[in-house]
């Protein structure tokens, strides 16, 4: 079982050490191969996971009665995640061999990607929260390295640092939560934590506090309000990175963590409510920003934030299997959207502004059709993966009594359909707005890039059929598979007739969103500008992302920088520098004093030797 982890790590190590000497051909062979092997191994274990296997590697920490093992936990939840991580990661690796082919740091890129996959597997396979934290930080590190991959660009290295620092803020909360768990439960094992919470050993108030602290960590990693600001900037990284780390895998770690600790969260009602409210509000908020963005990757970034908002919302209302379901379908269609966008950017020679694109479906049909499937999936058009998972979340929220949150969620579904089809219509339809030279270079991407697109499109289309709506079938393969890992089973009763109406409503809204986008961007392309001129205040507010970056800059960053400068001036310089320099100066001064003894005159040395001998002899003879 441990081989799942070893292959990506080994490949990453080889690429780091010998990467300079390997040809691009070998690198583009070994890096995806290592992930493929992991994928095959995880397929093999997938069927056996329902019993829940624990593979103990060794005893890591043993202090008093606290024992923490390095152990892998292979239960339904982790096996689904591992399969998704290795599968999507493999496809993106293959894609990247085509996309990054011109890059001079080819092997470094794959070394980081492999390392990322390793840490992600550590995160999902860990059996204790401490080991999970190792993976959690590891993927953060790889994310930082890969966002700043083109570190020659100042904006890229700044974006990397922003991601790292914002995540540290979240991790502070996460760490305090972990320590509190260790203090109250005296164990870091997920099973024991959940069992202790469910049996009432953790008081509800404390469980809520722990839940909120852990959720602060999740808001950092999964880009929720208030710590989402790093994700749009993270689009500075290469597009395969955005697809793998900032869409499919790493950013869903927060959702995974909440579902993993579902025993704790289902006891902590207050924390769960906070999670649900933050989640649905983030979903709506990010969707409104996505409407006005013109950078193709920025739209997708806000869309990712919005979709993760849905997952967090689902986790908050106790629909854990729905949260993971949406996580998996989202991984397929969002990875596909990013890879498709990457294919477009590749063809456009690095241009990301959608206002300079248009009518690309004529030039790149494969990219267009796969992108369209992903677009249909994310908008929740019936029949595609996103429809099933999103509807399950919305239905669960409706039947669990969160009517207000449900209505926000439905409204977001409309916005989602609108912004994603705005993107499709601006990019693939309409007039060709690029300049002649770019137009001349337009071409379909190579096979290594289109084949992963086709495979992902296949899953984005059919991935949803593992869990059908309740009014069609009461039995869902998905829920039955994940049944074992959920501690407090929800007793929601889905009334079929209402659920059918809800589904019809959200499908109608999705179609409406597509229709509005079609009307505004294909039928009457001048209309959007007229509308934005009519309501300049709202348009500007959305275009500038509610000025949140500026507010953070003013409220948090500037006082911090100012305070740090003050401390530097009034404490560091006199006290710390003073101490260090002072000790050096004292030594120098003493040395100068002592060096006066060395006169350079041999006579003086002889006299001092004689004097010493005489003194010793006298003392000896006197019998002292």
């Amino acid at each position, binding site marked *: 079982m441990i081989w799942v982890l070893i292959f990506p790590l080994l490949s990453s190590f080889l690429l780091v050490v010998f990467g300079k000497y390997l040809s691009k051909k070998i690198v583009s062979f070994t890096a995806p191969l290592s992930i493929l092997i992991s994928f095959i191994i995880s397929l093999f274990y997938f069927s056996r996971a329902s019993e829940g296997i624990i593979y103990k590697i060794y005893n890591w920490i043993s202090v008093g009665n606290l024992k923490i093992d390095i152990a892998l936990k292979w239960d339904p939840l982790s096996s689904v995640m591992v399969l998704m991580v290795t599968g999507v990661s493999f496809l993106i690796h293959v894609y990247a061999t085509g996309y990054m082919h011109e890059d001079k740091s080819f092997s470094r890129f794959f070394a980081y990607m492999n390392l990322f996959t390793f840490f992600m597997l550590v995160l999902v396979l860990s059996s204790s929260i401490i080991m999970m934290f190792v993976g959690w930080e590891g993927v953060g590190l790889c994310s930082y390295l890969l966002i700043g991959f083109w570190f020659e660009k100042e904006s890229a290295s700044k974006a990397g640092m922003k991601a790292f620092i914002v995540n540290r803020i979240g991790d502070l909360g996460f760490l305090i939560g972990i320590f509190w768990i260790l203090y109250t439960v005296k164990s870091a094992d997920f099973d024991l934590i959940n069992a202790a919470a469910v049996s009432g050993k953790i008081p509800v108030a404390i469980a809520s506090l722990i839940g909120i602290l852990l959720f602060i960590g999740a808001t950092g990693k999964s880009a929720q309000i208030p710590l989402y600001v790093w994700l749009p900037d993270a689009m500075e990284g290469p597009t395969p990175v955005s697809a793998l780390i900032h869409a499919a895998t790493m950013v869903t770690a927060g959702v995974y963590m909440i579902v993993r600790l579902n025993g704790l969260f289902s006891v902590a009602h207050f924390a769960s409510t906070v999670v649900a409210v933050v989640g649905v509000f983030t979903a709506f908020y990010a969707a409104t920003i996505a409407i006005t963005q013109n950078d193709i990757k920025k739209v997708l970034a806000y869309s990712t934030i919005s979709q993760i908002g849905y997952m967090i919302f689902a986790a908050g209302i106790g629909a854990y299997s729905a949260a993971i379901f949406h996580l998996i379908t989202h991984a397929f269609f969002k990875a596909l959207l990013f890879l498709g966008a990457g294919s477009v950017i590749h063809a456009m020679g690095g241009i990301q502004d959608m206002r300079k694109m248009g009518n690309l479906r004529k030039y790149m049909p494969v990219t267009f059709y796969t992108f369209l499937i992903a677009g249909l999936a994310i908008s929740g058009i019936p029949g595609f993966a996103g429809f099933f998972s999103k509807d399950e979340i919305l239905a669960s929220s409706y039947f669990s009594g969160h009517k207000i949150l449900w209505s926000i969620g439905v409204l977001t579904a409309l916005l989602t359909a609108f912004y994603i089809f705005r993107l499709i219509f601006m990019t693939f339809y309409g007039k060709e707005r690029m300049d002649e030279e770019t137009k001349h270079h337009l071409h379909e991407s190579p096979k290594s890039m289109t084949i992963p697109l086709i495979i992902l499109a296949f899953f984005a289309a059919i991935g949803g059929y593992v869990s059908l709506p309740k009014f069609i079938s009461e039995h869902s393969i998905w829920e039955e598979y994940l049944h074992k890992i959920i501690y407090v089973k929800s007793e929601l009763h889905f009334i079929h007739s209402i659920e059918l109406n809800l589904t019809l409503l959200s499908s109608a809204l999705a179609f409406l969103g597509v229709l509005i986008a079609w009307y505004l961007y294909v039928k009457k392309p001048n209309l959007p500008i007229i509308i934005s001129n009519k309501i300049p205040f709202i348009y500007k507010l959305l275009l500038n992302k509610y000025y949140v970056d500026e507010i953070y800059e003013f409220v948090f960053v500037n006082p911090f920088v100012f305070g740090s400068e003050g401390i530097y001036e009034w404490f560091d310089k006199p006290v710390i520098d003073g101490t260090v320099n002072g000790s050096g100066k004292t030594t120098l001064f003493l040395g100068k004093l002592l060096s006066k003894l060395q006169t*350079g*005159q041999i006579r003086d040395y*002889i006299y001092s030797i004689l004097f010493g001998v005489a003194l010793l002899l006298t003392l000896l003879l006197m019998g002292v």
Partner: protein
Amino acid sequence: MICGYSVIFLSIVLFLIGIAIFISKKTFIMMLIGAEFSLNAINLLLVFFSKVKNNLDGQIFVIFSLTVAAIEVATGIAIAVILYRKHKIQKREDLKELKG
């Protein structure tokens, strides 16, 4: 049998003469001679005591000590000669490069 005290006395006198030369003379050659004086005074003492005690260890030790002394003198004189040749230094007062 020689009188024990006279030998001890002789070697003490020789030793002190050596030290006196070492301190008072200014040239390196003379200082080396002084050092040899005191060294040999000690050797004499060792041989004498070895004879008295009927133990050959002392005399064997003297052989070693003489060997070392020979090497020491050879190096010492070589240094003195080079100092003279290169820097025209004969007297110890002129050699004060190591002043702190």
